[in-house]
């Protein structure tokens, strides 16, 4: 099969409120190739997690997909009836949630939770499912898994629990794993291990990853490409090293400038003045314009994602750049 694994086009997510629909995601388009790691960064409320939820079809009312399309291996998955949606998505997309405290059922043995997930997607018996669960616990690095398989989540530490959650996300052997801030709830000392584990395991099982985080360091280490989100839109998308070395969008430039470095002495960290607009008050043109240091007349109009080489930036500054249209962005 050719073409990207996941293709999101002009995705629009709205929340019905008493004052009318609130647009939380607007014109979000990106692709994820097979086995590729796409990092998604942005401030809180930029729509990172919402994009993930929309893809796996777990948007709850009042939220709904109001436009655009999502294709997994070429097949549209955003408008399927619920029963069919469950069949398609469950096994092909795995999710690693942010908080390992709540993503495991506290009253179910971890072995049973793993076996339940495995059995939901493979026609195998209880004993086989248990053997596979054991193998997965070993693979994610749980010490003496034979003993731990009958443990309850509260008997595990946060890092160990997140390992179980990773096993849970991968055990149905999905093609795509959505990791929603997988390290935010963990100790700094464990974060690197968990990130390395996700990276190695997904590579070994040839799964693509959509890594949602606000940690640029994690992205730089792990991702192949990055999408920078701002106010429910993609500000910039591109190959990770190029994007970090030479950010195109003024928002990305601001983000990069805000990262402290060891070799430049500074008393005060750089910051982007102002705050992200509320969803009910997104400016008509470019959402970043009110905070942008390089704002000009053109910004009153909403910029499309303009292709710059292999990359894309939603900024009029790059309008004149050679339009090497790339199907991926």
């Amino acid at each position, binding site marked *: 099969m050719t073409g990207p694994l996941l293709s999101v086009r002009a995705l629009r997510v709205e929340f019905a409120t008493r004052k009318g629909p609130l647009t939380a995601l607007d014109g979000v388009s990106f692709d994820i190739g097979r086995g590729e790691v796409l990092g998604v960064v942005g401030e809180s409320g930029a729509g990172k997690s919402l994009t993930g939820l929309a893809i796996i079809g777990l948007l709850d009312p009042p939220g709904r997909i109001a436009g655009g399309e999502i294709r997994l291996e070429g097949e549209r998955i955003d408008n399927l009836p619920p029963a069919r949606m469950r069949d398609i998505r469950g096994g092909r997309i795995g999710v690693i949630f942010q*908080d390992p405290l709540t993503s495991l*059922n506290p009253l179910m043995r971890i072995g049973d939770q793993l076996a339940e997930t495995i059995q939901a997607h493979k026609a195998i018996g209880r004993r086989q499912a248990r053997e596979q669960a054991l193998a997965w616990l070993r693979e994610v690095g749980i010490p003496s898994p034979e003993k731990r398989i009958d*443990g309850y989540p509260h*008997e595990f530490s946060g890092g160990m629990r997140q390992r179980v959650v990773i096993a849970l996300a991968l055990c149905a052997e999905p093609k795509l794993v959505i990791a929603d801030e997988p390290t935010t709830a963990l100790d700094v000392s464990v974060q690197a291990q968990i990130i390395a584990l996700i990276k190695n395991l997904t590579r070994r099982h040839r799964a693509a990853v959509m890594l949602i985080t606000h940690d640029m360091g994690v992205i730089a280490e792990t991702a192949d490409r990055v999408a920078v989100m701002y106010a429910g839109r993609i500000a910039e998308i591109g190959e990770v090293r190029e994007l970090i070395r030479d950010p195109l969008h003024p928002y990305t430039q601001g983000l990069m400038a805000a990262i402290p470095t060891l070799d430049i002495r500074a008393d005060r960290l750089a910051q982007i003045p102002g705050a992200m607009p509320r969803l009910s008050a997104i400016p008509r043109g470019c959402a970043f314009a009110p905070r942008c240091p390089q704002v000009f007349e053109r910004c009153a109009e909403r910029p499309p994602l303009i292709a710059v080489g292999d990359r894309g930036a939603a900024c009029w500054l790059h309008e004149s750049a050679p339009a090497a249209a790339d199907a991926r962005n």
Partner: protein
Amino acid sequence: MSEIAAPRTSASEPDRTLIQRLRDNDLFASFLASKVTVAAGIVTLVLFLAALFAPWVAPTDPFNPATNYLSDSLDPPSFVAGGDPRFLLGTDDQGRDMLSAILYGLRVSLAIGFLSVALGAAIGVSLGLIAGYSGGWIDSAIMRIADVQLTFPAILTALLLDGVAHALLKPTSRDESAFAVLVLAIGLSFWVQYARTVRASTMVEKSRDYVLAARLIGLSHARILFTHILPNVMGPVMVIATINLALAIITEATLSFLGVGLPPTEPSLGTLIRIGQNYLFSGEWWIVAFPSLTLAALVLAVNLLGDWLRDALNPRLR
């Protein structure tokens, strides 16, 4: 109550014996920590066992006319002057041994208590789960019905249901169906509490990531509700059920006392008290006193156990 305790014991060490596991168990330790709770536990256990094994424990069968003689009627307890040593707690107007009648009555009271709590909990928990999980108009419909029912006192609801059932049934079948009617009436008057509690807990649990994960792997709603959410909302249900057991026994006694409960041929504690109070002013105090004391002891003990369970299962009070 061991089913709540089970998840807290460490299952990863299967080589430990049950006694060792019990000793390390928080719930069990908190039970032993209070003398009142232990006393309540012992009283409850003794009464439960006495009721369960009434046919073997009771000195006579109070319902067998062949062994009851009217010449023995209204004998005072054996420890009082004029008492007959055969009847420890005296006899009633039919010549029935009070001790035996109380044991059999306890059996009936407890059976009605347990069955009506089971019925109320089953209805309430199911409706609460459905209301909390589905939300929207289903939630509103169920909870408004619950609100309406809550405006009637439980005893009134039970009386009403009991009255309707009696009106519908033929007079000949009334006595046989009295037991089932009581269970139904009491059970239906107590479901609201379960529904409200379970609905609230379900709304909390359904937004947890493990429920999202279960939805994602394609489990059916029923499966998610009953295997994932239900065990996580059962803690408060156990507390309510324990306290409701005492309430249900009291309600049954009240209904029987009022004469709409069980017939004198199949007496519960409440029926015995009703029969006994006719003789209170003619000096035969034992007919009303001993069933009343038994009822009070049972209800107090079960309530104390309920209080302990409520505190022991409340993480904020640990």
